[in-house]
């Protein structure tokens, strides 16, 4: 194996040793020094045109752009010297000369790089007496709006479309101070499945999401890191919320899964997270058909009692899992189901006709499986049934203990619940089939609880709760744990971390992993165990 040569330099007096070829901006990042930049992006080409990253190198006649200049042996690099600061301040002044004072009405306010740098280092007062040039706004199609007046011409969007999504829909039109970004006339960015990423990478409010337009101020946003449940790719995301409603999804960097990106299908498919009409309390259906809302304790006592009687009658078990819910939820229920008797564990999931790969980062694709945890369920031992619409394949419920998690059972025949010996549904909304269950228990969605998904390639990734659960809803793993304890078949885990550890008892593939080892970037399941458990690739 070839040795990597290293180069030593100092940045602001801090000694740095990096592999040959490392650029100054990357080296600075390694020692925690951020260098201001617009056009540079680690995943895109670097045109060195914004001139924000100019730094001083002792002995060099001019300031050099840190984004393209490789570190040289013995270089003394100064990012905070007077020439460097003056260059940045002067450059910011050039931007502000024509940039409209839109902060009060601009969505990007609060997460805007022009605001941030100007606040840090810009001139305190403007001195331009000239009218600002007006270039106008444009609808780029799809979810994207463009404000030419705000645009700082960094061309990140153009380069993203050329290099990463490789559907070159944008270009720089005209030249000089009349330059503007534009599409090919009416042929916009709609139809590019990854167009939404250009809103993320735009440093200012020139590219906006119509979906997010004027919806919330970013400093009002709360939220949590999560994993996109839209398909089995498992893009790392951040869920941004306000007043306990999801406002938007944004990708989170994971070099091994999705880089800086996510697809529009996942990005814009969050409305269901805010859906109303949730079951908020445990519901018990009496034999006379009356439904009463219960507190958890009496509901659990009643359910344990009913399970014991069903077990005594040697009823087989049908467990219907949900690929939209975590390994902890599905896994603990599987453990419970197996403890109750011979168990058939199934799940259904939608599947698209084809994958949509991101050409410039082919590890990322909108996968065919349109749920976040299909692979997790397969690994745990669930059997997939049904068609590509996520329907069909429901086994006969007659005389069985049926436990349904999350599945709305929309295609269940009428009276399906009634045929079962015992039907308990852990549900979000009370669809007709679910409402007919004897026990309807409110559980959290993957947005409202901590948990893990396994993505298409066997990577286990953690997510955190972004919303408060409605009413009395609990995580399904917690419900399963209480039932296990009540059946004297196991202990109820005290928290999600312990619930995850207990998955090793259900499925060997999960052995050796913990929330600590998973961190924020995830880890692969043991290859061999995963293959065995899944049966076939």
């Amino acid at each position: 194996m070839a040795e990597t040569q290293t180069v030593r330099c100092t940045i602001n007096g801090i000694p740095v040793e990096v592999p040959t070829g490392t650029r100054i901006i990357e080296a600075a990042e390694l020692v925690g020094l951020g260098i201001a930049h617009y056009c540079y992006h680690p995943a895109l080409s670097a045109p060195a045109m914004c001139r924000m990253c100019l730094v001083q190198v002792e002995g060099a006649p001019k300031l050099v752009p840190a984004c393209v200049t490789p570190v040289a042996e013995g270089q003394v690099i100064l990012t905070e010297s007077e020439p460097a600061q003056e260059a940045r301040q002067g450059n910011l002044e050039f931007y502000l000369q024509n940039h409209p004072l839109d902060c009060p009405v601009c969505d990007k306010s609060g997460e805007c790089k022009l605001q941030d740098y100007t606040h840090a280092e810009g001139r305190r007062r403007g001195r331009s007496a000239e009218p600002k040039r007006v270039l106008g706004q444009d609808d780029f199609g799809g979810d994207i709006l463009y404000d030419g007046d705000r645009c700082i011409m960094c061309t990140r969007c153009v380069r993203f479309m050329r290099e990463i999504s490789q559907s070159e829909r944008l270009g720089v039109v005209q030249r000089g101070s009349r330059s503007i970004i534009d599409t090919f006339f009416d042929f916009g960015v709609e139809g590019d499945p990854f167009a939404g990423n250009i809103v993320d990478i735009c440093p200012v409010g020139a590219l906006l999401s119509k979906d997010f337009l004027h919806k919330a101020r970013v400093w009002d946003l709360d939220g949590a890191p999560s994993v996109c449940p839209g398909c089995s790719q498992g893009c790392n995301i951040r869920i941004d919320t306000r007043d306990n409603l999801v406002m938007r999804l944004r990708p989170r960097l994971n070099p091994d899964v999705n880089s800086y990106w996510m697809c529009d299908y996942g990005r814009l498919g969050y409305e269901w997270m805010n859906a109303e009409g949730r079951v908020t309390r445990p519901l018990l259906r009496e034999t006379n058909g009356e439904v009463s809302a219960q507190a958890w304790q009496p509901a659990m006592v009643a359910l344990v009692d009913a399970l014991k009687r069903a077990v005594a009658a040697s009823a087989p078990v049908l467990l219907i899992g949900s690929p939209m819910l975590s390994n902890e939820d599905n896994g603990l229920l599987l453990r419970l189901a197996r403890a109750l008797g011979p168990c058939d564990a199934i799940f259904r999931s939608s599947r698209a006709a084809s994958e949509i790969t991101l050409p410039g980062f082919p590890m990322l694709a909108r996968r065919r499986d349109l749920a976040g945890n299909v692979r997790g369920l397969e690994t745990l031992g669930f059997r997939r049934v049904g068609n590509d619409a996520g329907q069909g394949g429901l086994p006969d419920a007659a005389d069985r203990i049926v436990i349904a998690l999350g599945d709305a059972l929309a295609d269940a025949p009428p009276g399906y619940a009634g045929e079962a010996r015992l039907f308990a549904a852990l549900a979000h909304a009370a669809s007709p089939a679910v409402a007919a269950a004897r026990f309807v228990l409110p559980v959290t969605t993957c947005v409202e609880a901590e948990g893990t998904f396994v993505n298409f390639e066997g990577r286990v990734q953690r997510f955190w709760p972004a919303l408060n659960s409605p009413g009395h809803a609990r995580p399904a793993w917690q419900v399963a744990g209480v039932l296990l304890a009540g059946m004297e078949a196991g202990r109820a885990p005290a928290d999600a971390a312990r619930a995850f550890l207990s998955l090793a008892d259900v499925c060997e593939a999960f052995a050796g992993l913990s929330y600590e080892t998973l961190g924020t970037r995830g880890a692969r399941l043991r290859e061999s165990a995963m293959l065995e458990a899944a049966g076939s690739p």
Partner: protein
Amino acid sequence: MAYPYRHDKETRILTAHFGEPDARTLEGWKRRGGYDALRKALGMGPEKVVDEVKNSGLRGRGGAGFPTGLKWTFMPKDDRRQPHYLLINADESEPGAFKDRELCRWTPHQLIEGALIGAFAIRAKHVYIYVRGEFFEPAQIVARAIEEAYAAGYAGADVMGSGVGIDVTLHLGAGAYICGEETGLMNSLEGRRGQPRIKPPFPAAVGAFGQPSTINNVETLCAVPHIITRGAQWYRSMGTEKSPGTKMFNMSGHLVRRGNYEFPLGFNLKELIYDVCGGIRDGRSLKAVIPGGSSVPILSAAEIDIALDYESVARAGSMLGTASVIVMDDRTSIVKQVRRIVEFYAHESCGQCTPCREGTTWMGKILRRIEAGDSTEADIETLTELCRNMTGTTICVLSDSAAAPVLSSLRKFRGEYDALLRRDEPALASV
């Protein structure tokens, strides 16, 4: 003959046959000694040709004055792994320069012969002549000459039976001054927006189409056949030690006689203006001179007693550049001309770099206000600081070129600016 006037003191090497329509044709050019140099060069071999041009001290005539022979040595010695390209910069757009157009329209074969010799020297199998789009007429003349060269076997698969193949392609631009910048030219040739590239990498390593390339100006290559025929020492016998040879001086502005005049480098500017060009027209007096095209600092009338070579003009605080001498008489409004020059740069800025994209238009707006009498001292201060922020901070030097005339005019003609300033309270600066 020089064109459109000739002066007895001229040393007419490149311009000897201007005004002779017959000199355009291949046969006419051969009768005047053309293509002997190419034959000789083919016999010398690439290394000796490079040495000869290096020894001659020929410096690039496109404005930078970089030694041509030295530039040729930057090319790889072996062209088997990567094709080499010779690019000819006929994108003459510098305000004040009009020499390359004359060379193209009067002596196209002089250019083609120089190009073929240059290509041979750097082992390039393909020459692209990038002609600015406005030069339709000269381009067609050069195109016709290319066809003649191919027909005669001087260009093509087997140049003069030497076994060396050199193709020549004429490429017409579409109107962008910035395509005269060497990397902007390469991008334009490649079918891209003509925006300059960051250097490194340099053209000799990564040039046109990603391959090693050399760019030479038209006037530079036109000198090459003469150097080959008459030798490096002959070339050095003219001009100065550091700036040998002859130069076409582009004389424009308020002169009695404008036009191209070819003199050895080092010729005196004052003599050029008053003797060769007949002095200032209409009996006026001289106010200012731009010695090297609009990108260089302006000289006042008191500063013109200098030799026109690269070193001397630099010592005088300006640059020789393309030797495009723009002469302004005492009726000239310096502010107006500087404003026009800055607006030119604003119009031609490619727009990549923020200081240039924003700074050129901003300066133009301030200068317009100054010219209209609607400005204050604060605007002069702003102007000066903008110039500072536009110098040395961009990918190419268009930004610096826009700042140079502003700074030099502020230094030397401050009175003209002051006379236009408002005397009342300055308006509150807008944010």
